[in-house]
């Protein structure tokens, strides 16, 4: 008793609709790339948005898709930043793209090792452990002063041209184009990943780990995998920071950075990939504006925004991003899906 072909087709298309590109998404990337030519005088802040967006995308992979709350995601960001800066400073790898990859791999290795710490335990122990790992790395970077420059940061880093051709300039022109391309490629990978059976299984692990394991999914295995991948993304984001600013300091590991990151993701909304990117845009422009008023009290505004978001409700705050969440496609396919019902009742 095979189902009728139409039912299969509809089901296939409905599943595929999850991954279909929306006009709004296409528009988003066109604008992002057009900014290379349209807003040359904003490239410095746009570069910051690009790596912050990538960093938040990385957090979205573990928080939005796997449900792991982390207060120490800066550990991977920082490791990536220091790796890239050290590679350039000691002229071990001069080509930025290659150094970026190595930084990402280093962060992935750290992610893999520390993933075992976040497998067990409650949200609280996860908070602790992630926070602890970041603090530990910060302390490490601080103590290894002969290598990392300690509290002064790693100075005198000079980054060679990308692919030997594109020299970094002080206006961030190369920096932005470079960061945006890296962000876009990693975004494509992430997009592919979350729309795959693997991505779906992450949602199941987040939603109901008990049942996920009862249908044969290795919950631990999935968490380790996504934590490792996300760490790599964060490491590359950190490496982008180091390469575009020729600098790495202890601040890359700071708690504030991990906490800000949570805010970035929450402003844009977790669990649909664009949240981190949208959040990064809002966050950076907000920071630009507010810290110009009173740089010292900038944390106050961050705190206020966090409290307000929670009091009002995260869903309500981010409801305007709905078009990005592919609600539209679900509605379209709902109509088609009725055919399945119709065709299957006809047969009876």
């Amino acid at each position, binding site marked *: 008793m095979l189902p009728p072909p139409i039912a299969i087709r509809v089901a296939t298309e409905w599943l595929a609709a999850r991954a279909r590109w929306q006009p709004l998404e296409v528009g988003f990337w066109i604008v992002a790339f057009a900014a290379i030519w349209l807003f040359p005088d904003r490239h410095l802040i746009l570069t910051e948005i690009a790596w912050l967006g990538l960093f938040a995308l990385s957090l979205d992979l573990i928080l939005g898709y796997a449900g792991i709350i982390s207060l120490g995601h800066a550990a991977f960001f920082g490791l990536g930043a220091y790796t890239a800066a050290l590679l350039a400073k000691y002229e071990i790898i001069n080509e930025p793209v290659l150094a970026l990859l190595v930084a990402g791999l280093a962060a992935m290795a750290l992610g893999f090792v520390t993933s075992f710490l976040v497998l067990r335990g409650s949200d609280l122990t996860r908070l602790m452990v992630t926070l602890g790992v970041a603090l530990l790395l910060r302390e490490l970077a601080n103590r290894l002063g002969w290598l990392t420059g300690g509290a002064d940061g790693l100075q005198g880093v000079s980054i060679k041209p990308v692919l030997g051709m594109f020299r970094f300039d002080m206006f961030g022109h190369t920096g932005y184009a470079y960061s945006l391309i890296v962000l876009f490629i990693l975004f494509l990978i992430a997009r592919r990943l979350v729309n795959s059976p693997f991505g779906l299984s992450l949602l199941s692990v987040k939603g109901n780990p008990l*049942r996920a394991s009862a249908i044969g999914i290795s919950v631990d295995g999935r968490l380790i995998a996504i934590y490792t991948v996300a760490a790599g993304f964060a490491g590359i984001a950190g490496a982008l920071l180091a390469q575009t600013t020729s600098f790495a300091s202890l601040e890359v590991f700071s708690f504030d950075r991990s906490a800000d990151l949570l805010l970035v993701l929450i402003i844009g909304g977790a669990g649909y990939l664009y949240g981190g990117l949208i959040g990064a845009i809002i966050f950076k422009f907000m920071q630009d504006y507010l810290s110009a008023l009173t740089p010292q009290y900038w944390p106050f505004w961050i705190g206020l925004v966090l409290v307000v978001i929670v009091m009002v409700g995260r869903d309500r705050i981010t409801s305007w991003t709905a078009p990005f969440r592919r609600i539209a496609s679900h509605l379209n396919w709902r109509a088609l899906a009725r055919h399945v019902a119709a065709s*299957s009742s006809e047969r009876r």
Partner: protein
Amino acid sequence: MAVALETINLVKRFSGIVASNNVSLQIAKGARHALIGPNGAGKTTLINLLTGVQRPTGGRILLDGEDITSLSTHERVRLGIVRTFQINQLFNDLTPLETIGLAVSERRGQGLDWWRIVGSRPDLVAEVVEILERFHLADVIDKRTAVLPYGKQRLLEIALAIACRPRVLLLDEPAAGVPEDERHEILAAVAALPADVTVLLIEHDMDIVFSFADRISVLVNGALFVEGSPEEVARDPRVKAVYLGEEVADA
């Protein structure tokens, strides 16, 4: 008689309570085995132990003679031990299509595919749709599970286990909470299972138990109390006293 699943002196202690007390149970290959007992007898606990959701305090579990006591839940699923839950355990934010799709791709070892878009394997989708239709879920394939009526959720609960192609299926009160007139869909699905699938059914409804089972074990206070064919169990005065007695009195 070939034994599919066997427990040897299985013990599970919670703080103060002995939920499984030296349970040595044998379930024959292809059996339609029922496990009955009053509330709190330790039936669900036994299934939790068999599937690795909980670790036994003592004792061993064998599948086809192999010791599986130390295997994790998902490893046991891969060996063919699959269960349903007394209280629905579903993925509230996913649709039935996605839910069944998950189980099928996992069973085929494609759950780690990260470069492939969901639904890009026609044969997989065909199988998923077939299961959904068999369980009368075709009209709700794109609804969030959370918004489905209870009867549909219960069907999905069982369909999800079937999608794993179990060799040993452990059903924990599959018809619990389902209205009388919708029960037959669930029971029919259970009855339609291939004969070589071994089934252990927990059920309070004696009509269902006696129409289904070829063997019955009675669990009381965590310990196996009586075991035998339906006729033997029905005749056993001790069972009447502790269990059927209550049922009859209720009726």
